């Protein structure tokens, strides 16, 4: 029995409450485990829960608090964190949502996971994903679908669907995901949480199972921009084990309160009239542009003339790199082995056929075809040339603006099975893919609920290379306008044993505790929701 409502605590509030001894890290770990136990039956975000690892990490944090030396407490001390299941954590299973790795046990820990642990985070477990991150709905996972906490009949997006759903349902305040073409930003949008894909090279990928090595990047999900920034602070910087990772000395929380006055926000007119962009999403993004203008930002129209080619460039480059990366699954060193074969060749074929699902098989075969003699010059080489054009487009655009604002996804979350055609599914990443092609940072920022669907809609913020602080600053300004991203309404009822507020918070931490919607912005939030046709009264949103 603990005296705080765990699900409402931001990472920032947790760090504060620990220092003020309002609760212990052990209590936090237990509250998170309890929350997962009561919620995940419906959401199915977790593939594996790791209570022993969480409690051991909590013990170390509590020892630091007991020693009285609060300076040794990491910035994420006591914060329950969970990881997409393509990230290795020593001793856990790392399945990538695939039969191929169903029994694979991590022999080492990924750098991104280690950095969260070094910052004091409590490892709660591993999260569901599209198989090998091939997908935009988490429906290709071999271990069942994850449900969107806003509507359990809908997908959470993907491929990091488990990471988004776990945060949106208030199971943990921070999760990690990976993004190759939109796999952090699109599920963040579908689930109404903050999701950041940092600039390529900002975060080490060592220990993260590779999909498209020139595109993959790791980043955080959170309900507040500050929590995402705190996680980013822990994650970034050079790692000798990933030669693409770059040194970084930025404090991503430093300019969150500065506002957007004088900032130049780029808008791409073609994006706002793109075919397939649902009116409610366009409306919401235009609303955000107006708000930023009212806050003193300068809105600049920019051109990305080659953006339309990004989709086809991505579906050339991505599968080619995936084909190469997935050749390591040979049924010999690790991974699924189909039993009873008398020769190696038939063992390879049977194991890779049974171990990989249909989307993985399609992408591997497509990549192989695209790299074959003759075909290479028709598709792969031009795709790389197009990559240069797209990169130059963004470079030019960022001569005129500090941050671009666009839709994240053309639509809100769709229903399970609603999109079965692979090429149509690929279109859900139409606004996110070009950013991976160019290597820029991008993030999804919740803008309330869509006027038609009543489901979360988001804006995407895009920054120049290694200027990720720019987009976080704009996101923080939007957050002040729209309110903190709420926990999905079906999951705002507190777990019974965590529901009592009988123990009062310390004076300092009380101000830091962030509820779904801060009181001071309740009026503007209500207005926003009304604008978007969401619940007219806040009571529907805030937890009864």
């Amino acid at each position, binding site marked *: 029995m603990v005296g705080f409502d765990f699900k409402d605590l931001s990472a920032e509030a947790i760090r504060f409450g620990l220092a003020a001894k309002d609760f212990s890290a052990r209590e936090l770990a237990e509250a998170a485990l309890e929350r997962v136990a009561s919620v995940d039956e419906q959401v199915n975000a977790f593939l594996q829960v790791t209570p022993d690892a969480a409690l051991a990490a909590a013990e170390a944090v509590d020892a630091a608090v007991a020693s009285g030396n609060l300076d040794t407490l990491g910035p994420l001390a006591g914060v329950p964190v969970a990881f997409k299941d393509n990230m290795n954590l020593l001793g856990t299973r790392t399945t990538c949502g695939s039969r191929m790795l169903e*029994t*694979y*046990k991590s*022999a*080492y820990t990924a750098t991104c996971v280690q950095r969260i642990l070094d910052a004091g985070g409590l490892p709660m477990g591993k999260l569901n994903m599209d198989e090998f991150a091939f997908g935009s709905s988490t429906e290709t996972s071999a271990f069942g679908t994850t449900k969107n906490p806003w509507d359990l009949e809908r997908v959470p997006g993907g491929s990091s669907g488990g990471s988004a759903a776990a945060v949106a349902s208030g199971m943990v305040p921070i999760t990690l995901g990976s993004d190759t073409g939109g796999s952090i930003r699109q599920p963040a949008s579908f689930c109404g949480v903050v999701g950041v894909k940092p600039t390529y*090279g900002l975060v080490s990928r060592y220990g993260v199972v590779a999909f498209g090595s*020139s*595109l993959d990047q790791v980043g955080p999900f959170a309900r507040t921009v500050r929590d995402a920034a705190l996680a980013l602070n822990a994650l970034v910087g050079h790692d*000798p084990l990933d*030669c*693409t*990772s*770059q*040194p970084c000395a930025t404090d991503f929380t430093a300019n969150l309160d500065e506002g957007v006055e004088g900032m130049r926000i780029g808008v791409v007119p073609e994006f706002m009239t793109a075919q397939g962009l649902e009116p409610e999403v366009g409306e919401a993004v235009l609303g955000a542009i107006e708000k930023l203008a009212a806050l003193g930002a300068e809105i600049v129209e920019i051109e990305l003339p080659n953006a339309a*080619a990004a989709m*086809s*460039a991505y*579906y*050339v480059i991505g599968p080619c790199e995936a*084909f190469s990366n997935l*050749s390591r699954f040979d*049924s*010999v060193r*690790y*991974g*699924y082995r189909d039993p009873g*074969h*008398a*020769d*190696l*060749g*038939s*063992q*390879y*074929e049977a194991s*890779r*056929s049974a171990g*990989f699902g249909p989307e993985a*098989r*399609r992408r*591997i*075969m*497509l990549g*192989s*075809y695209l790299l*074959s003699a003759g075909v290479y010059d*028709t*598709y792969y080489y*031009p795709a790389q*040339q*197009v*990559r*240069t*054009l797209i*990169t130059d487009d963004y470079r030019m655009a960022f001569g005129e603006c500090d941050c671009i604002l666009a839709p994240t996804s053309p639509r809100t979350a769709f229903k399970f099975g609603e999109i079965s*055609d*692979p*090429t149509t599914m*690929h279109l859900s990443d139409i606004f996110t893919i070009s950013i991976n092609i160019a290597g820029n940072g991008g993030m999804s920022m919740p803008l309330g609920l869509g006027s038609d669907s009543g489901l979360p809609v988001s804006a995407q913020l895009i920054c120049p*290379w290694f200027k990720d602080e720019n987009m976080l600053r704009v996101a923080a300004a939007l957050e002040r306008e729209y309110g903190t991203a709420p926990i999905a309404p079906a999951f705002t009822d507190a777990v019974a044993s965590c529901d009592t507020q009988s123990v009062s918070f310390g004076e300092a931490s009380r101000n830091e505790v962030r509820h779904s919607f801060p009181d001071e912005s309740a009026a503007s939030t209500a207005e926003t929701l009304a604008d978007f046709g969401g619940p007219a009264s806040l009571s529907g949103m805030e937890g009864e």
Partner: protein
Amino acid sequence: MASHVTERDVRRIAEYTRIGLTDDELPQMTEDLNNIIESLKPITEYDLEGVEPPFHPIGDLSNVMRDDVEGTSFTQEEALANAPAVQDGSFLIPSILGGGDA
């Protein structure tokens, strides 16, 4: 429907990528691949004369290499821990020159 690959091509790709495809699965895979390849058409229609492909996703950045010094790595036991079959400290596989894989 434009045909970029035939069922025979797809069979060859499957063999090359070591992905066993049954005869029942072949037509659907062929159709899926043709649909996806057709959707890549825009990439073939650009005027790309003189455009250099990038060598690193981010402009002039290059990889940050570590010094070439020996470090610790997995023990033999750790390296073999996930292997489906092991014998005498090695990965165990069926015959390479067995039947059917000539």
